[in-house]
């Protein structure tokens, strides 16, 4: 079992144990609002997108060879 698989297995097991111990929750209705401040984004994704866009821009007019 790989390290990542072990982590996933452990996390799912903890989840199951917590659920079994928890009391049933009442059904909620209506809507609620959460602040966007609770959302955190990654630098890696932005870096990937940036590099991809820059490459696309750089090669947009490249026309090499004939098909």
């Amino acid at each position, binding site marked *: 079992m*790989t390290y*990542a698989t072990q*982590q*996933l297995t452990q*996390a*799912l097991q903890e*989840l199951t144990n917590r*659920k079994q111990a928890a009391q049933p*929750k009442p*059904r*909620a*209705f*209506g*809507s*609620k*609002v*959460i*602040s*966007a*401040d*609770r*959302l*955190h*984004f*990654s*630098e*890696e*994704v*932005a*870096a*990937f*997108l*940036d*590099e*991809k*866009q820059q*490459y*696309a821009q*750089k*090669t*947009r007019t*490249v*026309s*090499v*060879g*004939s*098909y």
Partner: protein
Amino acid sequence: MSLRVAPGQRIDWHDTRIASRFSNFLFIDKYYRSHPVLRRIFSQARQHKFQSLLIESLSAATCPLLAAEDAALRVRRPDFKGSSTHRLSFWICPPDQPSAGSFLGYVIFKSDYFTSPKPQDHIYEAVLPPVRLPAHNNFIHCQRSYAVTTVAGIQSVSGVLYAQQNGLTHVCAHVALRSALACLLPEADISYAEMNKLADVDHKKRQVGGGKGLDPDQLVDILTGLGITHDKVVHEPSLGHILQTEFQRDLYGAIESGCPALMGFELEDPNTGSQGPGRHLVPVIGHTFNDDAWVPEAQRYYFGRNLGYFSSESWLSSYVLHDDNFGPYYCLPRHFLKKDNFRLVLGLQQHPTAFSASEAEAVGLDLLKALGTAKPPFAQGDWYDRFAVFSKENLLVLRSQLMQKADYLQHLREMRCWDGASLEGAEIDSLAQALPERFWMIEASAQELFAASRRKFGELLLSCTTPLPSPLPRPLPRPVMLSLLLAARLPGVVLMPKDGELVVTPRRLQGHTPIFTAWEDTPRPPENDNTTPAPSPEVFVSYAWSPESTAIVDQLQQAFANNGTRLLRDSEDIRYKDSIRDFMRRLGQGKCVVVILSEKYLKSESCMFELTEIAKAQDLRERIFPIVLPDANIYKATGRIRYVQHWENEIQVLDAALKTVRADNLANLQSDLTLYAEIRRLFDSITDTLKDMNALTPAQHEDTSFAELIRRVRAQLGGAGADS
């Protein structure tokens, strides 16, 4: 007027069955100069079980397009003498006995004559349905249906148009473009003259052929001239343009949205001339899928390539493409074409987008991980928590595609949670109000949910027209992300941005739901097509009237209805005074019959009559879809013998009773005796076939809302054609 609808003159109609000693090889060697691509197309017709071949000749005098093709050739080659064109059509019926549904497809074979006595042959066009279907894990999303005029009337065929270059007025780029454009243009085709006009090829000052093709700018000119937008990915090491990502993901992003892509690559030809290595362009029209692909796990754990998620593209095993040199519907293994050879992808789009599918997937990943961590209110169920765990551990499977609002809303209407819950109309309406006509959908799943069950945690919808800022700040600011996000539907909740915040609304779908299955779409006809639409598909169900079987039929009926298929059952489809036997015989002839086998079924005269009718109509294994209840004892020989004994006993009892009365006017009772004897005779072979079929248990079917069963039934209804 296209050559497929031009009036033809009949030459012959051959019986092509192997039993009649027809050989594709002999025939093509004798009449079509051993043309290799024609041989492949004939072999595909053979796989479709073709029985006859109609040959017609076409004349430039009655087909203006053919005349225009010849005129262009005359300009390009003044020694052009003329052409001979045959339309060969394949039929699943004996010669001269066409019937509804017996037309399989066609190929137009053109021979151009010059001063040399030997003509130059090529396949001008061909359309056959793919041999393999989604049931075999082959997905070709962009098929079209075509009307074909023959001496036996107007016929219809669905598939992706294939064509070959003649090397003079059209080359590989033209035919690849033609196949791809045929998938998108309203007319489902385009002439070479129109393409050459847009590419500024006049066959005099600017020619193609003889090693000269169309350059990428000319390809773009043609697309732009036709109003088709595209994503372009280039890898040109000689100019220092080194693509850092896998070109396969860009290719997949295009075709998974239902559009074709063009892929260009450089040849490794030892006889390279002064112009440098040759290049070739092919249309990519679909892909195959392997549920058990080793790649996703191995890439990450053995070879250190962790993207932070699994792209659904990792389960793709081959791209399906046409190659004008070799023929239609070839499979290119995902990793066969190395980046050293790859040069160009043009992903065609019917509608412009501000960023590509792979970029949408990256934005989607960022948002999904943020939502997994944020733990919004109402997101309290097991399945939201599992989504959050998979997201945190970088184990989400993501699949991005460009969606039309109408398709997405239909997907929501048909959606059933694993526990059977569905969305209410008002819940769907509130989402509908917030959505534009088109958007990116990024489906989020886990490996086991996605690959094996074709199900997901939910999906995230992104604007496809809002551009990403340039330059991109790192990380992307929250206002930018919220301007891209239209909605997210995750287990138990829908989240939508409003005034810089997220509005979270609880929803009844607390668990996993099916992924979007575009591949089951019916091929689109051209806009000027006048063929009659096919009737809605019919699926029969044969079952004994018992509470357990009836409950399964009720669920089955709902599941099929959700997939746009009508399930015919005796209690609803036999009207007052209709013949029950007639319905049973109709059921017996049905292309798809779901049979719910139970103890009561196997001992019921009516049920066994239906089963023998199905068996007598042949192709039992293809047409029957069994669900075996626990009390149907068909897997052990001793169990089956009990049923044989039951029917032998019935025969003896009825036979003995008949002998006690006068024989006249007892035809109906005698026919019952004949039926019992027939059940007895066929019982062993039918149940032997049934026990050998991998029938899931009722509980397994119910767990998946009959998804596997419905997939297989729909494949059978499709008529013909997996992962090769």
